[in-house]
């Protein structure tokens, strides 16, 4: 176990209520240590994505969050908009599911990249551009100079997600929130992006809170995992334990479903 001081994010009794009164999340308790990858597993509609958005104060309009979410020594729940804005994209950044719609089709990537830095610190655009190039190289983007001039529709799906990833690590955040980062990608690109996440964790020492419905993603990346059902945690533990000997009935069910799907072509790689 890492020391207590390495605790980066601590959720206690986190709850989210929609404008119409529906409880999207209830009593979520979850810790993320520095450098740790934690996966939140659940089927669609279980409230996983809203969990990530509510941490940044971006949950759907009209909804209410309750409980506590401590990030280092700051309380995120109930934090003012201007303070939250200083954290977003700087200390905590986010990677979205579909890079095609998450990138602005009207702006060249150069602008979409350097504005992250310019929003948070005093930096000239030449210097910001140099940092953007560096970030693109970190995510192994082919021909980064060219990519800076291009628009999202001129890139392939995998390149778009790399660009999103470069955008997310640009300010070397402490925490990356990744919302189904591989779901919209084809199988080979999925593997590349997952390897990249692991590599970035090593190089930058950042923690990743990753939301997925895919146990294969959990197996490949996560240290620990949490299973979410109907907005509640039904099980949490090490990724290995969850994937081999789930203690909850729902966890066993999930695993069973995956095994039946995946057994004929290939076993899960460990």
């Amino acid at each position: 176990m890492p020391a207590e001081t390495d605790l980066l994010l601590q959720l206690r009794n986190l709850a989210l209520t929609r404008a119409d009164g529906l409880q999207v999340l209830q009593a979520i308790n979850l810790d993320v240590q520095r450098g740790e990858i934690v996966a939140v597993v659940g089927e669609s509609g279980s409230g996983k994505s809203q969990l990530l958005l509510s941490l940044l104060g971006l949950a759907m309009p009209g909804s209410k969050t309750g409980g506590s979410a401590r990030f280092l020594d700051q309380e995120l729940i109930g934090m003012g908009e201007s303070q939250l804005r200083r954290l977003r994209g700087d200390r905590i950044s986010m990677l979205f599911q579909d890079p095609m719609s998450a990138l602005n089709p009207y702006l060249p990537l150069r602008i979409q990249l350097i504005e992250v830095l310019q929003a948070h610190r005093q930096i000239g655009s030449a210097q910001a551009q140099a940092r953007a190039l560096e970030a693109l190289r970190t995510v192994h983007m082919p021909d980064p100079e060219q990519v800076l001039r291009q628009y999202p529709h001129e890139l392939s799906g995998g390149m778009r997600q790399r660009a999103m990833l470069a955008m997310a690590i640009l300010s070397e955040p402490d925490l990356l929130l990744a919302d189904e980062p591989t779901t919209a990608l084809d199988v080979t690109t999925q593997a590349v992006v997952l390897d990249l996440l692991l590599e970035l964790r090593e190089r930058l020492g950042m923690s990743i809170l990753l939301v997925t419905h895919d146990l294969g993603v959990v197996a490949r990346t996560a240290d620990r995992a949490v299973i979410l059902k109907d907005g509640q945690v039904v099980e949490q533990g090490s990724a290995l334990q969850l994937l081999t000997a789930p203690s909850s009935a729902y966890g066993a069910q999930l695993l069973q479903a995956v095994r039946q799907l995946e057994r004929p072509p290939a076993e899960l790689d460990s």
Partner: protein
Amino acid sequence: MWRFLLSRLLSAIPTMLAIITLAFMLLRAAPGGPFDAEKEIGAEVKAKIEHAYHLDEPLPKQYLRYLVQLAHGDLGPSFQYLDNSVNQYIAEGFPVDLKVGGFALLLACLVGIPLGARAAWRRNGLVDRVAAAVSLVGVSIPVYVAAPLMILVFAVTLQWFPAGDWGGGAWRYLVLPVVSLALPYIAYVTRIMRASFIDVLEQPYIRTARAKGLGTRDILFRHALRPALMPLAAFLGPAIVGAITGSIVVETTFGLPGIGRSFVEGAFNRDYTMVMGVTILYGALIIIANLVADVMQALLDPRVRLH
């Protein structure tokens, strides 16, 4: 780009020809001629004048003659002001229209875009309610009601601005005509911008922008403005057409020396060439307006290619 412009202009030729032919036939079908009113001139003189303007020739011949003349850029002599050509009237009057109409559309954008954007950003807030009131008033009051009312309030009662003169185009004389003409456009632009901003602000890339920690101004003006302007660019064609219509009323009400007034007087006095000339000018203007709208959309959206 140039190939696109050229092909679009070429494809506009049949439309222009249709407009010219339709207007020509209708005008010639009208009972009475331009020189009927002059009772004091004898039948002989009248015949002479009509001969001089080829009005005694068979219609197909007159039509062909007119087309040839048009191809040389000549709209012919005015039948009501015998010493002047229609070209001269347009050359003198059209700049006035361009000035009033252009400023009116500019004003509409300067007020309507920020108003619509702010209304969409805080839906049901104070700005949104103000915007809703502005657009309701703007679209339900036609220019020929707004223009006299503006004179009544701002020229007669408050005496802030002069009215009923052009003053050589000095800005004080421009204020009331421009504002009256702009009112409905402020309303339309606000409505369009509010709706399109609401639509754009729900796009995933705006959520990305917020997750990046950008401020309101960056989100609204860097990320949302360009996509939100797309419907406005499409509205530009009809807007220019409407500004033309409105300018006819504004000119008559404020006594401006634009072509709208010549057009109305021409219609009143059966001045065929004047009415034809202005109709052709307006037709060409509409074709160019739609072209400008297409080019604007291509400039705004990197995914749109002109072809």
